[in-house]
């Protein structure tokens, strides 16, 4: 559990919600924003989930690695593909769009200025202009709030 002094947890309460809930109105506004990527299906949820989990892996963020987004599961994303995620560059489990998005996502985390025109063009070709905007905003949330979890030491969901 986080190093922040917290009220006694309600049984089974999600650790991310328990921490972020200390700033309740901010958490609600965050949830309203971050849920849109999934509920409005602005990008294929399987692609988004793969990028979300890859970013969490890169940042050593335990909480986001321990959860699965229902929309991605309902869209058919299986655990065997998630298990291959760390080796996506050499694995045959990932298609052209997924590779383009994972390459872009990794560079986004490492250094957004290092994203090349070719990296970006591959994503735009796959997702279109509006889809790319949604994708990049989703990456910002995945990156920022994986770091949020790591920096506050928010552990796995039970």
């Amino acid at each position: 559990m986080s190093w922040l002094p917290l009220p006694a947890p309600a049984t089974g309460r999600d650790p991310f919600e328990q921490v972020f809930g200390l700033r309740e109105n901010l958490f609600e506004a965050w949830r309203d924003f971050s849920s849109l990527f999934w509920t409005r299906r602005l990008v294929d949820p399987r692609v988004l989930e793969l990028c979300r989990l890859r970013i969490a892996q890169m940042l050593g963020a335990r909480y986001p690695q321990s959860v699965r987004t229902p929309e991605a599961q309902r869209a058919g994303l299986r655990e065997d593909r998630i298990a291959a995620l760390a080796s996506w560059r050499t694995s045959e489990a990932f298609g052209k769009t997924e590779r383009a998005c994972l390459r872009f996502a990794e560079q986004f985390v490492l250094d957004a200025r290092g994203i090349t025109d070719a990296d970006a063009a591959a994503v735009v070709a796959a997702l279109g202009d509006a889809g790319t905007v949604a994708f990049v905003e989703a990456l910002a949330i995945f990156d920022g709030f994986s770091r949020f979890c790591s920096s506050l030491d928010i552990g796995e969901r039970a």
Partner: protein
Amino acid sequence: MIAPRVKAPATQSADPIQASPLALQPELLQAFLRLYGTLWSHGELDQTSKEIARIRNARTIDCPICKAIRFSGARREGLSEDVLDRVRDGWEHSDLTARQKAVLRYVDCFLASPVEIGGDLRRELLAHFTPAQLVELAAAVALFMGFSKIAVALGGLPDSIPVHEQPTPICPATS
């Protein structure tokens, strides 16, 4: 200058946000503005701490927009350009306050390697901020970093923009 990666929407709007590619996703944009307004105008953490964190992030990520903006709320709290000039590499050796240095130490760790925030920094932060304020600081840095990276990744920005003051973000009226 990084070339624009997507086409901005056709609009006559003078609002730079509404004229930017972000307007290609209007529902997302409105939800983001509500989130950002909540952070800045309905928070528990002082404007100065958030502004120092935002500027440190902007200079680290090297986002021309974020580096140029100064929010009026922090100015009203007394945050001067002279202080912000010290929010650069080497800030450890400046005469910034201990509270300001705790913010900067956290931002630098957050951006470089957030898993390495250890006991000393945790104690330092808890000496200056409540747990709720620290959650707000963490969320703020996450959003600052995210917004800077969005701007950089979507491209189309000039290399430099003059420093200018803007109103502190508020929640837009819901339609």
